[in-house]
């Protein structure tokens, strides 16, 4: 089995945050927002292709490139943002762990510390590579959403027409939902992750075709899973007028509507996705921050050699787990704020990428072609527009 960086990245992309956003959006708008997956898919492919190309040509991580070319202040801004959103996102993953286990009747005071310790040991004791493979096999379980969706007996013609006639709700809530959907599909840290994986695999320009295929397959996985989550929730929760705030709610409310099995399948998928991302996210975040600021990093280093790295990694994991364990933790504001940070960060990272990838000095003959530039720049402009709206909306709605 050949697992390229694209497929791995695509699987990590559907984390607890993603599942939550897709279910909440579908519960509220039914099939109405499924169309957003199509532009998201196009932009996702274009962005990841750029990351892969930069990684292959330069052999340098995105963090390295940004630090060396964008100056220290922008770097500082990006990586403080990345750190905060890393903590926020990891918190969401633990919320996913807590929520999914509660569906099976396990309290979060047991599941969360247990998972946190397990994840920490997995990474620090150096069996990460095996863990990654196990998770990837398990992440096939994300396809169980297809089962969940079909059990909800959706109306396929209605779904089809909803995609062909995209609806756009110009209210504060509707806009925020669209931004949330795009933001969770194209998370900023994924760009760094993608580029590092490409370098680690030692891919080469002459195998570019396979790399591209791998990226497209990865993005299809992401979008297909998202599609079925939205169908599952859109066909059951929406017609019954059930409004949810968490992915756990989706799992619980599926029970009376689509059966106990559908509900448990949904929860199991959420659990696996949450653990998988709770392993990778803190690790990746700590790694990129260290890369940018020049600290030693990597799990093949000893604690003394890479103190900053391990402290950061442990810190992110610890803080995130503790936040979830606080009784009545303000989960919704936390996930909202980490989405806001993502929303501000994404255009900045993309902007840096677009500038870097068009520099001859860095990319040589592999600078962007016209089509990629057009799609890339439009994505940047639209995302900046969306993020600006997201920031202004709360002010306007007061």
């Amino acid at each position, binding site marked *: 089995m050949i697992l390229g960086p694209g497929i791995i990245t695509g699987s990590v992309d559907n984390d607890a945050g993603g599942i939550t956003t897709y279910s909440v959006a579908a519960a509220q708008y039914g099939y109405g927002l499924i169309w957003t997956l199509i532009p998201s898919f196009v932009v996702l492919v274009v962005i990841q292709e750029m990351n892969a190309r930069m990684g292959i040509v330069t052999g340098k991580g995105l963090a390295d490139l940004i630090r*060396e070319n964008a100056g220290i202040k922008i770097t500082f801004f990006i990586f403080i943002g990345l750190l905060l959103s890393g903590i926020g996102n990891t918190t969401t993953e633990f919320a996913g762990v807590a929520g999914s286990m509660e569906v099976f009747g396990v309290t979060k005071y047991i599941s969360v510390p247990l998972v946190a310790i397990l994840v920490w040991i997995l990474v620090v004791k150096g069996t*990460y590579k095996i863990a990654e493979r196990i998770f990837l096999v398990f992440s096939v379980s994300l396809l169980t959403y297809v089962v969940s969706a079909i059990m909800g007996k959706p109306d396929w013609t209605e779904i089809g027409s909803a995609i062909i006639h995209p609806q756009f709700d110009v209210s504060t809530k509707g806009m925020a939902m669209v931004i949330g959907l795009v933001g969770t599909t194209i998370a900023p840290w994924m760009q760094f992750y993608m580029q590092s994986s490409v370098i680690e695999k030692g891919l080469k320009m002459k195998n570019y075709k396979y790399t591209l295929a791998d990226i497209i397959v990865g993005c299809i996985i992401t979008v297909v899973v998202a599609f079925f989550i939205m169908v599952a929730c859109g066909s059951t929760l929406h017609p019954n007028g059930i409004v949810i705030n968490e992915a756990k709610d989706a799992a619980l409310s599926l029970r009376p509507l689509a059966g106990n099995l559908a509900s448990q399948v949904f929860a199991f998928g959420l659990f696996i996705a949450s653990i998988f991302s709770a392993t990778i996210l803190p690790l990746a975040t700590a790694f990129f921050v260290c890369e940018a600021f020049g600290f030693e990093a990597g799990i093949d280093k000893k604690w003394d050699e890479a103190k900053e790295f391990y402290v950061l990694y442990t810190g992110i994991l610890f803080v995130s787990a503790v936040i979830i364990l606080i009784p009545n933790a303000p989960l919704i504001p936390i996930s909202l704020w980490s989405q806001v940070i993502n929303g501000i960060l994404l255009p900045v990272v993309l902007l840096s990428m677009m500038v870097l990838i068009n520099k001859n000095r860095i990319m040589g003959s592999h600078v962007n072609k016209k089509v990629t530039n057009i799609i890339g720049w439009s994505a940047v402009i639209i995302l900046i527009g969306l993020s600006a709206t997201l920031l202004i909306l709360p002010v306007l709605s007061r």
Partner: protein
Amino acid sequence: MTSLTTFYLSGIIGKEAFGADGDAIGVIKDLLINAVPSGQNDPNQQMVIGVRLKIKKDTGFYSFKTFRVVKAREMINVACTGLTQLSKEEIDNGLLLVENILDKQIVDLNGRKLVRVNDVRLATLPAGTFAVAVDIGIDGLLRRIGISFPIKRILSLFKISIPTKYILWDDVQAIDFSNLNIKLSKSYAKLQMLHPSDLADILEDLGKKSSTSVFSALDEEKAADVLEELETHAQIHIVESLPVNKVADVFEKMPADEVADILDELEDDKAELLLKEMEAESSQEVRELLEYDDNLVGSIMTTDFLSFSETKTVEEVLRELRTKKPEAAELYNLFVTEKNDRLIGTFNLRDLVVAEPDATLSQIMKSEPVSLFDNQKTTAVAEIVSKYNLLAVPVIDQNEQLQGMVVVDDVVEDLISERKTRKRK
């Protein structure tokens, strides 16, 4: 005026230089230092020789001789008494502190690793201005962002101090010369003294462009040792990005089994091209090894070994070793063969040293030696090495002819790398 003024690069970049009459002359964009040392401990190698100055809309390089950095009441001021343009040659032989050092990765020769530069510390002495050290600590980072002072104030309330980390300029090797037409072998001179394994680790962490240029600056012997130590995909990158004749020269200096391992990973056309470019003798050995399957003993054996006839005396053998000066691994186990290369015994350095000079090999050798067949599975090697406590095991073919030997180093490498691939991120 004090004779010593120290300042940071970040404190001077973007500052106006003022003339004697107090007029602003231009904005300092970068400092140029002497990058090509004329000798090992050339004190001038870290002297600031030029400054990139933006005057109105034009930027140019000017000699630093007419510039002086002075500190008055904690404020850095740059005084300038005139402008002399630098020649192209002077610029090409220099290293730009902002362009090539700041925010870039450099090699810390003492720590033998790559670090990122947050700031550069300079000092003005009567003889001139010099780069003294690079700042790689958190302190430098905060200073660059401009929040060092407030954070230090807050932390001092809790009696916490921010650690400062400097590397002296002597222990710094710049990597990124991308914009200069500099002679690389000279500029990377400091790297030659690092151990090949350390150099290999550094090359693996570098970007593709830099790793190629650093590698091509190494002399052939060093390059061969480093290439051997690199991980597979780094090896392939180096081999594919350098000219064929250069790679062939390096290959000739490497043990045949290591070369075969690399060629195995390349495309057939490229491998053939390299084999043709190598000297016939070296390429023949490699070709023979390439015929073995990956999981057979033949694929991991080295063909660099020493064999003698049983009639040789201890003294003759020692003399031969002195003239040949073989690599350490070749001495792990020494072989005695008959006319048609049939293996009949082994002996080691100890046997040789404790024996009388006129004793013959037939008297000191261990006959009926433990050996491996070239078409045996590699899984058998570890067991034999540990069971008989051997540093190197002879490899024979079906006709009992000696083909090579498997060295314990290579087996250990395989065992560890098996574990490592599981461990690495």
